[in-house]
């Protein structure tokens, strides 16, 4: 590696001197970095500084506040640890299933387990609500409230649903990279199936399992939408309590204190995670897949059981949401006498009507229009900021090595915290609808840059040199070489930003004006209102959001460069 970048750097210099002799390379880099860094300073570092000053204040650091903070921290740890353990219990056998066995519908099942991870939290929460909630399918079909799932159980299930794919990916990859001869040697030395697992396979997988669990823990630790929508504010994790204090109690100082505690925790976990992943060695030569069909009875039972469990666990919530949005099981508020039970499109029709007693001042479908508008604005802003940064990062110098982790930093802080930062710093402009797309841009920017950068790096300098030696002007080179190659990556990055904005919940809930709700915000409001009609509309909204997200995911998958944008 040492020799190549130098070579490339001189190439860049030569070509840039050739094309634009008036601008020095370092000056060009400053110009590239100016927009993204200015944005980050205003939208991230400044709010972070405000949160910090608010936290380290005698009034904030009262014993009462600190007591509350530790109680909340304790519960956050507890639910995250429990969720992680349960995810491990389902994820580890699933990883073995995908890494070791061949069975019918394998690629479909693998894709199915990956879908929740890409869905907005509100959709996952609504899905579980539509299945297990009080007005959910199971309760209505079994015709009794005897079957009521405790909200905490629903939260745990939703967390497992979300994160199992992480274990399947990380541990599954480690497992298929494992040399099968190690296990065979252990067998020849007298180890039976159990001892091969316990003494050889498991110890070798330990770094991968730890890394995957830590990542799952990190997601569960900062989980917001699932907990708020399935549990309500009684299940106060740090993230939920930040929202409670900021939005309901208007105690910004306490919210800031909680946010800082959470940030410190996630930073520590992230450092551990980075250390661990550095130890996950990947073999230089990819091993040929050792997949085979189940042979012995024990293997057959294992494969059949887990294929069934995974299919049911992942298909039920995903399908119950659209089903519940199309069926009426209870009378709406104010409806008496003859009520049409069964199939109905009322919940969708109702979205277009502006009712006076409804929770909005506008027809609910307006939320969809708002969401699409916010998402489009996010796409434009994040591309405008992401392109210069990606171009600078594509040919890194020492400057980029410092700036690269800096621009990824917003990933480490939670969405609610970003929203809190905006409220504290830009409280004056809260009436403006522009805060939302900027907050969304902050979250989307790292993903946009990480999608664009490999594509830009992949454009060979020789192509540009060849084109210019054939007489193409710099602008023509850009048009004929860079643009066609970048078009795919740009589309993928744009869709990434679009999807993130569509599903963003934590920051939006704090920042969105009541008259400009987004789809996730609307779903939250519908769910927090009583009555079958509101519930049905929440289901309909969530179904719309799910469809929009699935379409976006399919577009990303189509245009993404292979190997770009992994965890």
């Amino acid at each position, binding site marked *: 590696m040492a020799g190549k970048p130098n070579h490339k750097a001189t190439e860049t210099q030569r070509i840039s001197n050739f094309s634009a002799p008036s601008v020095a390379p370092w000056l060009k880099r400053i110009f590239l970095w100016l927009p993204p860094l200015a944005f980050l300073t205003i939208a991230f570092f400044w709010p972070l500084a405000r949160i910090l000053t608010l936290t380290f204040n005698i009034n904030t650091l009262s014993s009462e506040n600190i007591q509350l903070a530790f109680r909340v921290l304790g519960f956050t740890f507890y639910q995250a640890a429990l969720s992680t353990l349960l995810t491990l219990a389902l994820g580890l056998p699933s990883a073995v299933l995908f890494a070791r066995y061949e069975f019918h519908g394998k690629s479909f099942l693998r894709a199915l387990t990956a879908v929740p991870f890409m869905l907005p939290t509100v959709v996952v929460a609504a899905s579980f609500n539509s299945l297990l909630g009080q007005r959910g399918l199971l309760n209505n079909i079994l015709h009794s409230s005897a079957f009521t799932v405790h909200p905490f159980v629903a939260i745990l299930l939703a967390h497992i649903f979300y994160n199992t794919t992480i274990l399947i990916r990380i541990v599954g990859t480690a497992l298929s990279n494992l*040399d099968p*001869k*190690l296990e*065979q*040697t*252990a*067998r*020849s*030395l*007298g*180890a*039976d199936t159990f*001892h091969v697992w316990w*003494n*050889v396979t498991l*110890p*070798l997988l*330990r770094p991968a399992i730890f890394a995957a669990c830590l990542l799952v823990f990190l997601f569960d630790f900062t989980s917001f939408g699932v907990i708020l929508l399935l549990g309500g504010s009684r299940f106060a994790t740090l993230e939920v309590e930040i929202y409670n204090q900021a939005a309901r109690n208007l105690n910004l100082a306490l919210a800031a204190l909680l946010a800082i505690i959470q940030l410190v925790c996630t930073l520590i976990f992230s450092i551990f995670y980075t250390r661990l992943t550095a130890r996950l060695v990947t073999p230089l030569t990819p091993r040929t897949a050792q997949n085979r069909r189940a042979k012995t009875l024990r293997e057959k039972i294992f494969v059949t059981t887990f294929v069934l469990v995974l299919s049911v666990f992942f298909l039920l919530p995903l399908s119950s949401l659209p089903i519940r949005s199309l069926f009426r099981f209870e009378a709406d508020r104010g409806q008496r006498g003859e009520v049409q039970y069964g199939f109905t499109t009322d919940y969708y029709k109702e979205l277009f009507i502006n009712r006076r007693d409804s929770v909005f001042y506008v027809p609910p479908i307006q939320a969809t229009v708002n969401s699409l508008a916010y998402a489009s604005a996010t796409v434009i802003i994040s591309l405008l900021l992401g392109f210069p940064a990606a171009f600078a990062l594509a040919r890194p110098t020492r400057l980029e090595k410092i700036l690269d982790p800096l621009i990824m930093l917003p990933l480490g802080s939670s969405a609610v915290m970003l929203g809190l930062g905006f409220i504290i710093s830009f409280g004056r402009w809260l009436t403006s609808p522009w805060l939302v797309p900027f907050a969304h841009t902050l979250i989307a920017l790292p993903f946009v840059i990480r999608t664009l950068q490999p594509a830009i790096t992949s454009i060979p300098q020789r192509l540009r040199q060849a084109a210019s030696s054939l007489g193409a002007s710099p602008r023509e080179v850009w048009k004929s070489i860079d643009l066609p190659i970048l078009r795919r990556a740009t589309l993928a990055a744009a869709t990434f930003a679009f999807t993130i904005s569509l599903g963003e919940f934590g920051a939006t809930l704090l920042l969105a004006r009541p008259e400009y709700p987004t789809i996730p915000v609307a779903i939250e409001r519908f769910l927090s209102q009583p009555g079958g009609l509101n519930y049905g509309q929440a289901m309909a909204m969530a179904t719309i959001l799910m469809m929009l997200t699935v379409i976006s995911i399919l577009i990303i998958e189509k245009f993404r460069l292979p190997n770009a944008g992994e965890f």
Partner: protein
Amino acid sequence: MLEVRNIFKTYDDKLLLKNISFTVAEGETICLLGASGSGKSTLLRIIAGLETPDSGLILFNGHDLTSTPPHLRDFGLVFQDYSLFPHLNVNDNVAFGLKMRRVGQSEISQRVTNLLNLVNLKGFGQRKITDLSGGEQQRVALARALAIRPRLLMFDEPLGALDRTLREGLLNELRSILHQTNIPAVYVTHDQEEAFAIADRILILHNGEIVRDGTPVDVWANPGSAYVARFLGLGNVFEGEVGARKKDNEWIVKSKYGDFTIRCNHKHARREKIPLLARPSAAEQEANSVRGVVTDVVFQQDRFKVTLNNGFYVYLNEAPKLGRKVSVRVKVECLA
């Protein structure tokens, strides 16, 4: 004594092993020699119990082991890439099989120490696997396989990843250890020098069949088929047509290199096509000779490999000039 009886194995509808039968006696080392894809590794994995044959039996001292799982066979296994457990140190790698057998702690440490001495790794016990060289790793793998006092040792290209000088040294050590311990061994390799150096008996596998079975000396002297002669690189292998019979066991054969007189104990009919071998070392007292123009001369340590314009090659002690016409006396054997 290991007995392999009528083993058949197909993989992806391809017949990989066809009716393989052989035995390995107490203290005997046999070599399965073959090109890649000949089925030799599959055969080894079947003996180890890592794969099951479609039909046929694996017997040890008369007991049928065909359906016995690998961890109950007491067969030691050594792979080309050592397959040492990277999360254990040298001691724990060697002790692995003993722990699986619940041998007492004091006996384990004593046996591990003795084994490390045997493979010349005294004092290496606490080292990490990743700190060892390839040769040292292979010694650990050997010690680990020996630790369980196996009834049979199996090697799958054990020296394939090592460089030449290291390979020769380790090969000698391995041979002396095998003789000391008197454990029967099956050794799979594609390298004929290795096979000839270590084996008491060589089995040559080709397309899933044993095409030659004999001691190294016997196999070298009587390859028995054109494939074996070519595979072992014994010399010029070509086809001849049987002509007139000179004596009881002497025929005249025609070939692209000229007419030769061969001695053969088999009966041959006129016009029959038979495979012939002409070893490249010049033999002055032979009656047969090959003529041609020298097109290439390669220096090979103590001799020159001389190639003629008809493709025939021969080893000579002195280098002839390029373009010179030469006539070389050679011995021609019948391979049928």
